[in-house]
């Protein structure tokens, strides 16, 4: 249809429209806002010091003083969950931004560089990707010792190949696009070609993917911490909370619920948000466009 010449609604208007027709998308945004907000404000909104023991009775069920009850040594589970969210978001933000940056750089070099370099990079990336994440993580932990930094490192290294591959594929497709040839024929310099013409067209899909990857990263962090290979107790990670509660699940289910429900909410939130972002940013996929 020839509605091509009609003015396009602004990004905000488009976002609102997509979200108004997409309940799960709106729910995703709300969940993400809550989780990210509580992570940022954690030090000020926790009712108790998350590491302090015996702030209440042991193994107490939820009450007005302790919204999610207390654990086996009397720590406030709600405070620990909020503080754990901060750790989870920190790991996600640090490792994903590192992975995105490295993935972009490697992908662009592979896509635009000479053939031999492309082949070499592909070989390395595929080799990296062939390790199972947890096994690779265990190996790194054995060498470096368990810590927050180790978790970030493991997640970064295992995510880079995925992003780099996507950037490479997109770049290769763009390389022969007529508008890139047109820019080259006008004598555009490499930096401008890269940052003005290639990058913005690669970034969109990448950010959407990264949003959908947040739960994966958090699950990896929780998994490693649960195994005792990640964040060290008493620092409250969701994996640590789960591990602590798991030993006493017969006495009280609340620590396990407190550790697992946020992981479920994060997964739903970021996945729904990622899908909504795709609808907002990629007009071609929108129905009836």
């Amino acid at each position, binding site marked *: 249809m*020839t509605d091509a010449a*009609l003015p396009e609604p602004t990004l905000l208007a488009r976002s609102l429209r997509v979200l108004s027709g997409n309940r799960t998308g709106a729910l995703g945004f709300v969940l993400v806002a809550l989780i990210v907000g509580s992570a940022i404000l954690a030090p000020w909104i926790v009712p108790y010091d998350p590491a302090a023991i015996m702030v209440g009775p042991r193994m107490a069920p939820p009450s007005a003083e302790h919204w999610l009850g207390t654990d086996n040594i009397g720590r406030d589970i709600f405070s620990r969950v909020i503080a754990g969210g901060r750790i989870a978001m920190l790991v996600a933000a640090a490792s994903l931004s590192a992975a995105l940056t490295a993935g972009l750089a490697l992908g662009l070099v592979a896509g635009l560089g000479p053939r031999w370099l492309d082949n070499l990079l592909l070989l390395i990336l595929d080799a990296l990707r062939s390790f199972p994440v947890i096994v690779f993580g265990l190996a790194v932990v054995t060498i470096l010792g368990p810590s927050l930094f180790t978790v970030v490192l493991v997640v970064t290294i295992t995510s880079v190949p995925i992003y780099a591959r996507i950037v490479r594929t997109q770049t290769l497709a763009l390389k022969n696009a007529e508008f890139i040839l047109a820019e080259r024929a006008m004598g555009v310099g490499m930096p401008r070609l890269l940052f003005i013409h290639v990058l913005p067209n690669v970034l969109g899909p990448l950010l959407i993917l990264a949003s959908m990857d947040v739960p994966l990263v958090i699950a990896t962090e929780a998994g490693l911490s649960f195994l005792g290979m990640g964040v060290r107790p008493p620092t409250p990670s969701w994996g640590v909370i789960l591990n602590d509660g798991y030993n006493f699940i017969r006495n009280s289910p609340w620590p396990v619920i407190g550790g697992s429900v946020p992981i479920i909410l994060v997964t739903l939130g970021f996945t729904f948000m990622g899908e909504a972002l795709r609808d907002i940013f990629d007009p071609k996929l929108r*129905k*009836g*466009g």
Partner: protein
Amino acid sequence: MATHATATATEEPLVAVEGLSVDFDTPRGTIQALRDIDLTVPKGKVLGIVGESGCGKSTLAYSLIGLLAENARVAGGAIRMGEHDLARLGAAGWRDLRGTRVAMIFQDPMTALNPVTTIGQQMLDIQYRDRISRSEKRARAVEFLEQVQIPDAASKLDAYPHQLSGGMRQRVCIAMALLTQPDLLIADEPTTALDATLEMQIVALLRELQQKFGCSVVFVSHHLGTVAELCDDVAVMYAGEVVERGSARSLFHDPQHPYTQALLDCDPARIKIATRTLPTIPGTLPDLRQPPRGCAFRARCPHAWGRCEREHPPLYPGAAGQRVRCHLSDPAEDAA
């Protein structure tokens, strides 16, 4: 049916489109893509549908085979083919008609063929209804590839689509469409993606096969030259309406609607004396979310006057037996 009085239409037509309207629901509003289309596809004839992008010619073609986009909706009218109303046919009804009575060829033969399956396999698959042996199906596939003049047809059965040239792929698509011996073949810009000399080959082939198989063809194109080569009847579309229809001869030799005249004037092939100032049609298509009340072409028409704004023109009978949606062709205007 009031508008059914073309001079030649004594025989029952294969397809009669009666007052068809199709809307598209988009985030920016409802687009009235087709409005009140009246057309007949005569048996054993080629009907050309011409117009520029956005005129609705492809929408019309797709509605004839029930492949409209998800956001499209038939807002009124009917498409009669025998006892069926194609405009109201359900999924099950279409499964029985498509590939038996109605078939289609598309603009891009590469996307119309399955890239990971051989030509032969695809040609066997579409004969799934026929209770004949595999080797008989194979023989028929070869026979039809020969019909579309593919050299060394038997060996092409094992080829994948990407191993053939664009022209060859379109021939394969035509062979597959004809394999089911349809009554109606819909061709949506089938030569647009091809080079000029191949375009003429395909047009000549379509003409020959149409006469051999006796099917009706609806040929959608923006290329006036190929339409004149191939079609018996022509309908000119503008902004979702048929503005003029009639025999190819009447349309190309004696166009009545100002849009048809302007379109023919713009074809550089008709301008025999070299010129550096080519004719154009100034202005743009009306917004089809709110089609103008009077004549849709009014804003771009050199002859428009007050009546064109007030009154939507019906299809008047034209001088050479065609039907024209223009008040200039109203017999009452002549009398006045």
